[in-house]
């Protein structure tokens, strides 16, 4: 199994790499277009700022590459947000794989802290990505921006209001949470992606 983790300026590639090692997979971490194109599966991780990261992807011509990939692709956290059409973070147009808006959490009082940091439960699971995952399983989130609910939502989570904790369209999968930091549940989800 040849898995490429896309290397870019704001990725937490190390955590994803470690998680795959624990599953017995040796991924390659690369921004080389040919290596990514030839991979069996591609992971697009992310921690960082949407606008600066989109610019970096464009500079490296990774934007065109990612949206045209035909093998299974998994976006994580900022990766999911960048696969949407537009983000309020820096008011930037994104890859438009999912026709979904990325918005900032708005809390009227301090009851809901921003960023959302911690373990929250998933429901309405509907994708092979969540095989053997129970409804209401807890996974780890760290984010101030969220993807709106849409027909491509494959997992929902509530924070202030329901949002898309997972998205899927054709060969593109994405999670807002960090499977690589979500203990045993996260391992199963990454394992599911590897066997899709």
């Amino acid at each position, binding site marked *: 199994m040849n898995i490429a983790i896309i290397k870019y300026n704001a990725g937490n590639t190390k955590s994803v790499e470690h998680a795959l090692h624990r599953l017995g997979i040796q991924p390659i971490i690369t921004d080389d277009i040919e290596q990514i194109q030839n991979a069996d599966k591609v992971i697009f991780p992310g921690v960082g700022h949407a606008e600066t990261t989109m610019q970096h992807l464009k500079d490296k011509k990774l934007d065109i590459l990612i949206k045209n990939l035909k093998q299974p692709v998994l976006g994580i956290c900022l990766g999911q947000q960048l696969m949407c059409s537009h983000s309020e973070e820096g008011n930037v147009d994104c890859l438009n794989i999912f026709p979904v808006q990325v918005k900032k959490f708005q809390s009227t009082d*301090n009851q809901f*802290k921003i*960023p959302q*940091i911690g373990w929250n439960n998933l429901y309405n699971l509907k994708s092979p990505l969540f095989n053997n995952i129970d409804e209401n*399983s*807890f996974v*780890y989130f760290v984010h101030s921006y969220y993807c709106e609910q849409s027909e491509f939502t494959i997992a929902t989570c509530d924070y202030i209001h329901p949002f898309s904790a997972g998205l899927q369209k054709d060969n593109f999968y994405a999670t807002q949470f*960090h499977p690589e930091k979500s203990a*045993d549940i996260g391992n199963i989800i990454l394992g599911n992606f590897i066997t899709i």
Partner: protein
Amino acid sequence: MLTKRIIPCLDIKNGETVKGVNFVDLRSAGDPVELAKQYVIQGADELVFLDITATVEARKTLLHLVEKVAAAINIPFTVGGGISTIQDVDALLNAGADKVSINSSAVRNPDLIDELSKQFGVQCIVVAIDTKLEDDWKVYVKGGREATPIYTKQWAKEIQERGGGEILLTSMNHDGTKAGFALDITKWCTDNLSIPVIASGGAGNNQHFTEVFNIANADAALAASVFHFGEIKIPELFEIDTLKTKELKVI
């Protein structure tokens, strides 16, 4: 529902845990990696590693340790102690830390908070405050050894405005007493800040966690020796109402 977080803290010196531990089944009680794995099994939500050494040589040891921890555990962890530059943070994150915690260096140079959060994102910048009650709550630095004229409430607000992602609030009046957390200053922070607050100092029994979550509304609670010595068992904390659903997290 977002659950409250339980965070064990490990003090590290020259790559080893400092405070004694009495977990059974540990190959080496002083090995932070073994201890970290044990806490993951117990259901800890995150871990904090606090490096209490400061020499250059010890920093290299710390980076090596962070790499080993990152390879071994699959929950988030924060590293704090002696961090004062962008390069320090870059090295720790590259070694696999998810967040860093800064303290004295942020008081000395508040612009550091802005610089770090801009460079790495607010989500990985934890600002720790050591505080002590005088005429009002005041900020202490250098591991609580040095007083400052700064008021904690004002400083907490400033941290938020400058882009701190979370506040780790330790009450020096309560730390080590096992008499409960500082509910008043913790509640003031959670009521008046829009970023999460981690309460620290004073945990002595399960009831103290219930109080700090339900009365002070803390987003997370941190403790060290009561976990290391097994006086409080993390799985038992899941009985607390706000945490109950987390049982589902662990398979």
